[in-house]
């Protein structure tokens, strides 16, 4: 028996309201499929299942608000028989005898599993005696979320499977909840940012990055493309950060239980301001490995869905580093606040012509952007931070290779 639990979709979430079920009892579901829509402080979120199965029982009704970790639904694992309800235990048998032996799991892993809404019993353990480690939990949770790590089953592979929802979900706005949302989002941001400032010893660096080549490349690229295929500088900036994370893993991951856990993939969180105020920073999965066109398409899709209030649980769970771009609003430099449990955030200000001394000592007006880094001093030091920013700068000098 598998359990779908309400995941914590942010450092600050402790409960959620079930808005809608997208599946019915008896329905076969595949990993990554949207099970239900849950209203959080920040958005209506499509909650995905992390393993194939058959829906057995829906335990929470639409409209109910339940704490994180609550079992929302039970599912039968592949091969498990629907016709075999747990036999009533004979009165004489000790109650525990019917159960599988309790899994060995570290307290940290158990806590994290609860946060992520992953059922411990279903996680293969890689530790001593099959103990479930923190990393196993992370992997199990990420399994539903990292399409590159484990491609979603093609429809052809399981004809009975319900088709995966289209990437662009219809706006799942909840008109009645709008005024409340504002206050809740403010509270959620306040909680996360207060925790960040309280717990994370931030250090800050900034570097002016010349963008003459990138701007010219972009102009030329876009001149040859129809409007639907044009790129924004934001896509180049995001990709450069994701690529830089490969060589500087200490900026890509999480601070948990007094230790740094590097992330295996780069899921770049994109800070998106919402039109009614507030912001959300969903993940663009595997941003380092995707071609620019795809990064741009997914970025555009994320922005539209974030603003329509329709994000997926994996997008909120997964960011391994955040990128915030405040140049459109005119700011020159961003002094950003890290979103816990992440350990770094990269900010970009406005792309604008500024005085620049080139290699020949000539003073010229050149489009530049100020890239800034706020990073966690428990994990990295300024020296590595400076090299990380320099790597981003160097990558942006070769836009054709991004």
């Amino acid at each position: 028996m598998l359990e779908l639990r309400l995941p914590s979709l942010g450092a600050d979430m402790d409960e959620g309201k079930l808005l809608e079920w997208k599946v019915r009892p008896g329905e076969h579901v595949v990993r990554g499929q949207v099970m239900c829509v849950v209203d959080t402080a920040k958005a209506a979120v499509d909650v995905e299942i992390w393993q194939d199965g058959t829906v057995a029982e829906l335990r929470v009704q639409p409209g109910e608000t339940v704490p994180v970790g609550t079992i929302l639904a039970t599912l039968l694992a592949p091969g498990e028989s629907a016709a075999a309800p747990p036999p009533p235990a004979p009165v004489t048998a000790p109650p525990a005898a019917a159960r599988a032996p309790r899994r060995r799991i570290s307290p940290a892993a158990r806590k994290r599993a609860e946060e992520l809404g992953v059922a411990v019993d279903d996680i293969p353990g890689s530790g001593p005696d099959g103990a479930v480690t923190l990393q196993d939990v992370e992997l199990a949770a990420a399994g539903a979320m990292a399409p590159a790590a484990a491609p979603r089953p093609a429809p052809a592979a399981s004809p009975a499977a319900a088709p995966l929802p289209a990437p662009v979900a219809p706006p799942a706005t909840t008109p009645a909840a709008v005024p409340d949302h504002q206050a809740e989002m403010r509270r959620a941001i306040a909680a996360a940012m207060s925790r960040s400032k309280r717990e994370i010893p931030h250090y800050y660096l900034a570097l002016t990055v010349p963008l003459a080549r990138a701007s010219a490349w972009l102009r030329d690229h876009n001149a040859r493309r129809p409007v639907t295929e044009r790129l924004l500088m934001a896509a180049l900036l995001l990709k450069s950060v994701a690529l830089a994370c490969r060589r500087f893993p200490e900026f890509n991951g999480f601070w948990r239980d007094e230790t740094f856990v590097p992330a295996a993939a780069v899921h770049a969180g994109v800070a998106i301001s919402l039109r009614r105020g507030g912001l959300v920073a969903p993940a663009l999965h595997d941003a380092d490995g995707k071609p620019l066109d795809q990064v741009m398409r997914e970025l555009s899709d994320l922005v539209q869905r974030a603003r329509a209030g329709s994000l997926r649980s994996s997008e909120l769970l997964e960011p391994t580093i955040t990128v915030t771009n405040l140049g459109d609003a005119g700011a020159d430099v961003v002094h950003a606040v890290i979103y816990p449990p992440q350990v770094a955030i990269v900010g970009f200000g406005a792309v604008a012509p500024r005085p620049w001394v080139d290699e020949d000592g000539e003073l010229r007006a050149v489009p530049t952007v100020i890239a800034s880094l706020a990073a966690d001093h428990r994990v990295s030091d300024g020296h590595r931070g400076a090299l990380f920013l320099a790597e981003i700068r160097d990558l942006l000098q070769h836009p054709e290779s991004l």
Partner: protein
Amino acid sequence: MNRDDIRARMLGVLKGIAPELEEDEVDWDRPWRGQVDLDSMDFLNFVVGLHQALQVDIPEADYGRLKTLNGVVEYLAGRLGA
């Protein structure tokens, strides 16, 4: 298609991006992106929306002519021969 039609289509596209927009609150002869609070992603979506609504592909080099809403209407009218 006359200017009123173009204006109506353009507003339709704009409201898809900025649903809270009140057209009376925007000065049609002043730069509008700041007034409506559109970032570069919104602006690109605006141009994509115009492309879909009016079958006009606006090259990036022409963005400078879209600085005011009346400017957008004039530009589109020119492109559509209205």
